[in-house]
């Protein structure tokens, strides 16, 4: 855990994630603090570029973009969390418990994982959402979560398989420890790191998926999220009218969130895999410097070796 805070990548990533978390919690409150309302229409300023009155400009409908971005954070993060929790839960159920159950149950869950892995998930969500005809934030989140677990389940299965054969688990099994205790008390704590990385990944993936679905018009009409913002901007041809302040901020928010998760994951990889850690730039520079010093000693460096 000490290493954890050591990596600047993890620190920056977690910091960014914390900012998003705070915005999701307090975004609406912040809006009212700033005297903003995502639904309020300023008839005097439609489609205006950023100004003192509207820091991020307004939409063609005269709505404040900043207010929408702040409000949209909650919409996007809530969908991400719902989907993340659901898909992580299914992944744990299928990946860990399925593996421990062994035998036919394991074969079944493995087949299911592989099946969902090779199916194109996004079109699947799209079609199901299309049949369901809209639905609220909760439904979108559940849908994304329901189809988003197979990658995580596969990773967890591989980890569980290797854990299951470790001495301490084998010993516990020999001692007749009950299976649920083996899974939850002995095994799960060792998978906590993997599971939390997976959860993070799932949340960000869900935010991206929600944005994609909203862009296609699959969203509830009253929801405000980054995805709906981009969709509305696109529908009003913000692009062709040059209203960049409308569609750039929500996309940038998503990209930055993804980057934060990427940084955390990369940092964790570096901590978990010492070979990647050795590849850090600061260290490489030092090693190069030392190597150059010795190579540059007076004796001839280039000696011709006849074959």
């Amino acid at each position, binding site marked *: 855990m000490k290493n954890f805070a050591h990596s600047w990548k993890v620190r920056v990533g977690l910091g960014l994630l914390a900012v998003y978390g705070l915005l999701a919690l307090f975004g609406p409150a912040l809006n009212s603090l700033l005297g903003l309302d995502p639904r309020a229409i300023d008839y005097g300023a439609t489609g205006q570029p950023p100004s003192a009155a509207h820091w991020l400009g307004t939409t063609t409908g005269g709505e404040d973009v900043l207010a929408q971005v702040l409000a949209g954070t909650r919409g996007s993060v809530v969908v991400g969390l719902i989907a993340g929790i659901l898909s992580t839960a299914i992944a744990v159920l299928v990946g860990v418990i399925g593996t421990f159950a062994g035998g036919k149950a394991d074969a079944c869950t493995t087949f299911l994982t592989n099946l969902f892995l090779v199916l194109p998930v996004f079109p699947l969500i799209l079609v199901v959402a299309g049949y369901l005809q809209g639905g609220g934030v909760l439904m979108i989140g559940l849908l994304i979560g329901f189809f988003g677990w197979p990658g995580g389940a596969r990773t967890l299965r591989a980890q569980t398989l290797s854990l299951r054969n470790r001495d301490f688990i084998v010993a516990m099994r020999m001692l007749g420890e009950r299976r649920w205790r083996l899974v939850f008390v002995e095994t799960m704590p060792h998978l906590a790191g993997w599971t939390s990385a997976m959860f993070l990944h799932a949340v960000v993936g869900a935010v991206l998926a929600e944005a994609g679905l909203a862009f296609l018009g699959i969203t509830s009409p009253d929801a405000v999220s980054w995805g709906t913002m981009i969709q509305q901007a696109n529908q009003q041809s913000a692009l062709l009218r040059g209203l960049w302040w409308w569609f750039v901020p929500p996309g940038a928010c998503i990209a930055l969130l993804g980057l934060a998760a990427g940084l955390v994951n990369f940092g964790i990889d570096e901590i978990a895999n010492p070979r990647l850690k050795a590849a850090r730039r600061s260290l490489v520079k*030092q*090693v190069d410097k*030392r190597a150059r010093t*010795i190579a540059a000693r007076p*004796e001839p*460096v*280039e*000696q011709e*070796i006849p074959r």
Partner: protein
Amino acid sequence: MNDSPRNDAPRDEVLLEVRNLTVEYVQPAPEPGVVACRDLTFDLHRGEILGVAGESGCGKSSLITALTRLQRMPAVTTDGEIWLHRDGGPPVDLVRLSERALRRLRWSEIAIVMQSAMDALNPVMRLGAQFADALREHHRGMNKKAAWARAAELVAMVGISPDRLRAYPHELSGGMRQRASIALALACEPALVVMDEPTTAVDVVMQRQILSQVLHMRARLGFAVVFVTHDLSLLLELADRIAIMYAGRVVEMGAARDLYSDPQHPYTRGLRDSFPPLFAPRQELHGIPGSPPSLTNPPPGCAFHPRCARRFEPCDDRTPLLMPRGGGHVACHLHSTAGNDAGPVPKEMSL
């Protein structure tokens, strides 16, 4: 194994002169580097087998990667010279040699056998192809067919049927892989073969078979060997000379028989008594108390003093130097006469 081939090989001609070799593992900025090998100085003669023994973390693996210039990221040779004498040519310093020039010496002069042959053979290439690419790299104009034919001869020498050349590494048994690695190392008839614990991953029967094959091939081809292991008793059967490493330094070096019958350093004695000899009657074993020192923060003075039963006043703060003693060398205050411990490092340490 019992008829000693130790005297067959030519022993007068120097092959490798290692001088003040120091290897460091560079640490992120404010921290000082970890010194894995400090000030190693020794000679190796043509056809000689030098055993290097020590516990894990004593710097013997770092010595290997420095000799072969296969260091991985944070490891750097920060001081010293490794002079390689070649037939019909001036000696070259392997430490400073450019990578391009070094490439020609690799495998044709210096080859390596790694600890685990499973990891050392490329899993996606057929065994024969792994011989062929080395052979064709160093014998310009050798065609593929000739290379495979030569590979067949080489594996036959270690008792592997030539039709196994078509196999992938995972299709061979552990012992077969290790013997194939040894045959591979001899492909270009190098003057020096560095072996990094090549017998730890195989069972005792196979271990003995591999050792006798190494001795047999050495007698036939005359290459020198640096053989690194933690198993001193194994070296006693195999090596002409043995160097004992502790905390990055050589603490004792001498002829294998002398080292066994009359170890000078308390650590050597401890090491000898903690392993059963391969071919000797059973006797009581004694371990060495304590654990190997940390290289990041080595104890002051003689690095062995916290574990040494015979330590006395100078051991705590003064580092003993490697001094001639009997037929060999030892770095221990028990054997140093007054004033010796500040003297210069002897240049020539051959027997």
